[in-house]
């Protein structure tokens, strides 16, 4: 049962947050920062790995800004607004993990841009914002899918795959909210 079909928004939010807790525990796999075992075997993580993590960090920081734009647009109504803020929270967690991991591996983490170019003039309704967010999440799934095979360190690949799963859930739920088939195909590319 979709939480979008639950008449009581509070119940829908509780259901969503309860379920997303499962995803967050999966993302805990990515908590390489603080994982001293990884630091000890970080020879498997080369310069490419740091660059991959930094590129992902840049995209996560942009996603945080995009959801902030959506949240402040006054176009989102509850419970969709709560949903956007929850997804933004996930991206903040991803960014935090990526930043700490880059630094643990001796790299310099990228910073959020002072400003981002978003198609603000095209965002006139809640559906526009949801479509915009869905495109970003779909792209994020593809980006992580394209990054996972590149990691020299398999623990990092596993962590990136954990984030990929979370982004895919975001995409599916946004599509559901738009009245589209939530999972349009058996495979992602």
């Amino acid at each position, binding site marked *: 049962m979709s939480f979008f079909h639950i008449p009581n928004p509070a119940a829908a939010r509780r259901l969503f947050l309860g379920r997303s807790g499962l995803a967050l525990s999966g993302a805990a796999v990515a908590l390489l920062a603080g994982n001293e075992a990884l630091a000890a075997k970080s020879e498997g993580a080369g*310069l*490419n790995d740091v*660059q*991959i993590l*930094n*590129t*992902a960090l*840049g*995209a996560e920081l*942009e996603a945080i800004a995009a959801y902030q734009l959506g949240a402040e647009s006054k176009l989102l109504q509850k419970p969709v607004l709560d949903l956007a803020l929850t997804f933004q929270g996930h991206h903040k967690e991803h960014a935090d993990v990526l930043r700490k991991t880059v630094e643990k591996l001796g790299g310099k983490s990228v910073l959020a841009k002072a400003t*981002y*170019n978003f198609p603000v003039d095209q965002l006139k309704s809640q559906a526009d914002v949801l479509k915009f967010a869905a*495109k*970003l999440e*779909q*792209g*994020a*799934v*593809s*980006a992580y*899918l*394209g*990054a*996972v*095979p*590149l990691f020299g360190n398999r623990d990092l690949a596993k962590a990136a795959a954990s984030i990929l799963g979370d982004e895919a859930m975001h995409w599916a739920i946004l599509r559901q909210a738009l009245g589209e088939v939530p999972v349009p195909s058996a495979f992602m*590319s």
Partner: protein
Amino acid sequence: MRRLMVAGTLALCAAAPAGAAPDPVRGEQVYTRCMACHALAFDRVGPRHCGLFGRVAGSVPGFDYSTAMKNSHITWNDTTLDRFLTQPLKMLPGTSMTYDGVADPKDRADLIAYLKLANETLECRKRAPANQ
């Protein structure tokens, strides 16, 4: 003989897609993979794609490129794009485009066809060459 003809026909059918003209509509679908980082008309994690063809790599004003890209001396055209998209890190180690690549030649051809078509749209044409 009849069996040979059938086999020949099947072989031709199987070969047909490889020779098919690049499909920009399908390429637009492939482009969704790029949209985590790129947009046509503005810079994001990756640089804009308006003005791509004929552009020297690493030359969009104000975009923070990797050193590898800035020093690559690549000019983007069908050939260089096809090579780069196949395996970006193999063609250009050190690039920030840490993406495994678009493995299917047809996907790449369609994607490049879409990018060409998109560069002819008003969204891209509005941008003066100096701003691209």
